[in-house]
């Protein structure tokens, strides 16, 4: 059945769909039950599935992660909500030391099929600590998978894949685009692949690689540039880890030029890893240096200056022009 939904609603659709199919799927987190989640991601799920499957937890992120790990070891498929990515840090010890390692250190005897969902990224005029983009921290951890949807349809398909994945998946939802785009999404329980990029726009002049909310600005820049005769290929990374290197390389070998866009701070960002991979494996196809359009190496400013931190589509257009004109 087709639904006209925004990204947030697509998340809700996927959660409901999978919970109906698979009894082992449970949800836990702060305010997820009666309140339906502070963003309403889990709206109506408590009513449909009851309190044993949609659990309101005490206020303790370490506990949420640790309990999820214990549940997952028993074969449940917990989907834990961390209310904002800024609050995931107490849970990192559990995620890094245990979720990411359980399969490895027991040689497969125990495993950890959990999902941790968190809204992330800036641009919603929020108080401090509510705008973090630290996907690079998580991408760096072996044993985890990190997924970032950028549209309602991809949020639906990727969340289903995350829930079904036998390993721990951190599912970061770009909250700035939670409600900004409506799309027709078919509620057919079809998952999209984790570990695959998505090509959103074909072009032969330059490759634009991005993920999350910045996809919106990237597509808008690509549209604008096409009117000036520059045809951009736009790739949505979607799975930050494990990265689908091949799709990016095929595109760069075709276009010879690459601009990477991410909201997260520049140093040590995932864009650096992609640049290194392209340098290693496609240097001879590059016609110009790889350019990264990123946030600054600062804390996200309080919201009055937020716009000066977040890259916009003009920044992307400028970077493309700089790259295309490089001789």
């Amino acid at each position, binding site marked *: 059945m087709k639904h006209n939904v925004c990204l947030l609603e697509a998340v809700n659709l996927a959660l409901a769909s999978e919970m109906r199919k698979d009894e082992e799927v*449970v949800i836990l987190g702060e305010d997820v039950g009666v309140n339906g989640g502070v963003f309403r991601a889990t709206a109506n799920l408590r009513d449909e599935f009851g309190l*044993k*499957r949609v*659990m309101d*937890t*005490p206020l*303790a992120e*370490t*506990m949420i*992660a*640790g*309990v*999820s*790990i*214990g*549940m*997952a*070891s*028993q*074969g*449940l498929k*917990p989907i834990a909500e961390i209310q904002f990515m800024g609050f995931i840090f*107490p849970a990192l*010890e*559990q995620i890094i*030391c*245990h979720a990411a390692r359980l*399969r*490895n*250190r*027991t*040689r*497969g*005897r*125990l*495993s950890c099929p959990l999902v941790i969902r968190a809204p992330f990224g800036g641009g919603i005029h929020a108080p401090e600590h509510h705008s973090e983009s630290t996907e690079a921290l998580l991408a760096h951890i*072996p*044993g985890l*998978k990190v997924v970032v949807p950028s549209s309602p349809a991809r949020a639906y398909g990727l969340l289903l894949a995350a829930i079904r*994945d*036998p*390993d721990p998946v951190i599912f970061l939802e770009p909250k700035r685009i939670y409600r900004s785009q409506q799309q027709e999404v078919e509620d057919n329980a079809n998952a999209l692949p984790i*570990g695959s990029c998505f090509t959103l726009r074909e072009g032969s002049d330059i490759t634009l690689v991005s993920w999350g909310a910045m996809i919106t600005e990237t597509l808008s820049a690509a549209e604008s540039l096409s009117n000036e005769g520059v045809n951009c290929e736009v790739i949505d990374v979607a799975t930050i880890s*494990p*990265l689908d*290197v*091949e799709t990016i390389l095929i595109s760069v070998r075709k276009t010879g030029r690459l601009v990477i866009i991410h909201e997260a701070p520049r140093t040590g960002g995932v864009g650096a890893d992609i640049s290194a991979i392209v340098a290693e494996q496609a240097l001879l196809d590059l016609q110009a240096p790889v350019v990264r359009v990123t946030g600054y190496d600062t804390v996200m400013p309080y919201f009055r200056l937020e716009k000066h931190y977040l890259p916009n589509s003009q920044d992307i257009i400028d970077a493309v022009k700089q790259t295309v004109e490089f001789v």
Partner: protein
Amino acid sequence: MKTLPPLQYLDQEGQPSQPCPEWCNKPDWLLRCYHYMVLARQFDTKAIALQRTGQLGTYASLLGSEGIDVPVALSMKSTDVLVPYYRNHACQIIRGMPLEEAFLYWGGDERGNSSVQMGEDFPNAVPIATQSLHACGVASAFKIRNQKRAAVTFIGDGGTSKGDFMEALNVAGVWQLPVVFIINNNQWAISIPRQIQSAAAQLADKAVAAGIPGIQVDGNDPIAMHEAIHNALNRAYEGKGATLIEAISYRLGDHTTADDATRYRSNDELKSAWERDPIKRLRNFLALQNFWDESKEQALLQETHQLVQEAANKYIEISPQKIDSIFDYLYAEPNSQLIEQKDWAIVKAMQGGSHFEGESS
């Protein structure tokens, strides 16, 4: 606040300090308990010897905790789940881990966490107190599925200061989880004595904040431990929720083989702790009940010594895992980067490679 003394049936000489329960008139459980306590200590001695001769890595001695771990392990069902910290080797052995594999974890081999006999038990936990939350997760699964099973988890006195522990007690209380928390209060967290670890009169008092029952038990008294753990497990099975047991003992060994306790504690204190040794205590009681004698003692010592020696020999023979194993268990399915990196590692280990370990020809 409770001011009761810790639950105890046997004083440090092995004499009843109060009437013992009925079942103590039969030797069965008591003999099994004693057997495993002696085996555990033999294992421990051997492990330390192996470490001192370069055949085992850093090892955490269980010396002095036998009176806690053995009664707990013997009281758990096979369908219960053990969520240990890093000093529960006795529990792991009793629950089925082959002796030679019990050396493996400390010998630097992940297979020490993987034997099928471990069932759904968690492996050793190094990040302090993180295991308390895992036990809550396991217990949550039992509750969601309406299973009559309990999660049993251990922690040291130092671990109770950590947030994870407090969060675990809290969720166990408010969700009424079938979990038993056992604090091995052996008075020392490496060099930090109990007195400067927490201002709580008893660590068991932390249960009050969580709304669950907390009880102090003499951890050197296997009969008291038996009673306490049985009550707690029954509560869990009957859906009555969690229990916190603070078992009072003494860490008779160093924190690990990399530690030297003589740097921070007095010999006198150690000597008087040995007076409270749980093995001596139970042996005296067994003798008192005419369940034990010197010849049985010698036979047991010999038997357990031999078992441990054979296991140690087997362990030493176990060759390291293949290099593939570094890469094969990160995910259910490896990704292309891992596959590529694995091949590199394998090639580098071949003759001529940067990681070749044999003799160059």
